């Protein structure tokens, strides 16, 4: 979809929908929101809807950073300690690698 040809209210609507959708445990929607509307929010000359789009993009970016931090921490801990957790590690795993602890 080419944002050039869409009226500004629709752009605002899109950004709002992506922002709200991301709260349903969908951080990729926030990622798309940030990447897609970055130019609209910060690099285009000002228009009426722009401050709201800017706020949606900023809040999506914040949510995205939180998700990335949490996921990275959990993945690192799990990969490092799964073998030591024994039974708990096995019950948390979907597939367990063969041949290594």
């Amino acid at each position, binding site marked *: 979809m080419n944002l050039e040809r869409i009226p500004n209210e629709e752009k605002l609507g899109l950004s709002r929908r992506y922002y709200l959708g991301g709260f349903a445990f969908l951080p990729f929607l926030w990622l798309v929101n940030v990447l897609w509307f970055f130019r609209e929010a910060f690099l285009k000359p000002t228009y009426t809807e722009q401050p709201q789009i800017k706020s949606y993009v900023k809040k999506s970016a914040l949510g995205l950073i939180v998700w990335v931090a949490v996921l990275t921490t959990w993945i690192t801990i799990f990969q490092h300690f799964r073998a030591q957790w024994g*039974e708990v590690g096995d019950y948390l795993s979907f597939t367990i690698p063969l041949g290594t*602890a």
Partner: protein
Amino acid sequence: MCVSAAAGVCSSSVEKKIYVELNETVPCVRLLNATHQIGCQSSMSGDTGVLHVLESESDLDWILSSGPHPPYIVIMETAFFNRSVMMRMKSSSRVAGVAVIVSKTGLADNFSPHTTCPNQNTGVYSASYGSDLANCNVTVWNPLGNGLSYEDFAFPVFALKDENQTQVIRKCYEDHNLRVNGSTPQYPLCAMQLFSHMHAVTDTVTCMRRTDLQNRFSINPEVLCDPLSDFNVWTSTRPLNSSAKGHAANESVVLAATRLDGRSFFWEQAPAAEGTVSGIVTLLAAIQALSPVTQEAPPPRNIFFTFFQGEAFDYIGSSKMVYDMEKNDFVIDLNNVHSMLEIGQVGLRSGQSLWMHSDPVSRKNDSVNEEVLDLMRRMQSAAAGLNVSLGHPLFTQPLPPSSLQRFLRARPIPGLVLADHQTLFNNRYYESMYDDAENLNVTYPPDLNPDEQLVYETDAAKSLAEVATLVARSLYLQAGGEEKSLSNITADPKIVSHVTNTHTRTLGVAVLLLSLLVTYFISSKAELLFSSACETPTTAY
């Protein structure tokens, strides 16, 4: 490494151009018990390394520190397959795998990969029972043991059994990898890939839990490990109702037992001639010798013969039988057992001597001591006229590793273990792949064909027949039989030789057994591949 193997020119597949597949190879596999893992493991796609033949100390330094093309696959002769070399390689990251050339040339005069004190934690001697006798404090049974079978190696170890292919390997090494005049060899180099990926990890508990998860939740469950399971074999002179369980009324049995299994460092290469076959053959011949007289003049007590499987791994078979007896899940129970005679390693007698081992702790009780002394007296009278001189080791010496120990854990049963060794084992190749017919001194006159060899009465067979006669007569006396029938009980050396020859020729009585004390696992295929430099220098592109 040769990468530019000819592709377009030849019609055979690329893999055949690069690799020479080795057959007649045996891997070392991973085994688990309740707390640990032992054995060897390779990477999922095999471990590849540059070939190096280990022939001297300088070769070992080359592999471990100075060679410029790590990791190396080490080819070694039997002489170098010892604890110091293997432990040095275990702690190095430059060794990708080991291949051992199996041959008798250069074999040291002893090699036992088992521990020095077999089954020390699962016998009867512990902190609460004969604590000063536990952990081989008094007698070390297998002092020549280097414990290699119980180490955990992170690289694959294979045994190469085909002499012709060993020559091919050597030729490749000499053509490409050999250092000439101190200069380091350059690529292309000869390499080898060893593949023996094991799925089992950590310990039995983990493996069983993961198997359970696989079976419950996976569409295509992976096999992670197999339990060591098999069957004990038993029979008796007077028939017992095999479907009846628990205490058998009016039955007092004399147990005659021996073990049925052996093991070695490599998978299923366990001839166990002196360690196991000598016992099996003796007991079978004794059963055969007893059969006519127990029909004509049956003794008051029943004689119960049993062959225990899995004794190498913490007494799987005998502990299962004792467990079943205690739970009233077996044809007899421990109250039915009057006494026990176990046949240990009896093939390598020095001269005529045979030793009767007993447990000093249970003999502190007077009634048990009386029974044991009676059993010894009956054996001595049974030995009259035979080429056997019975002796008893020091009273303070504990029992050697034997199934009787598991029975003693449950009940102070009077029993003896018959063995050819007074203190340490006479077997210098205990639980190794070299414990074969040659170790038992089975020799034939040079002009016999295989069929004649099968029935020839070797000296080893005659010696075992003497022991079998002694065992049969002792069991008959112990079961309450009369002295006058003793002369009719004789083991036939022909039967003994036939059974010995057959057994020592068949390959390994590998260990498989009833309860899940130890689990081991083997990957779906253990292949050994071997890459060589290009044979055809005309590369296609």
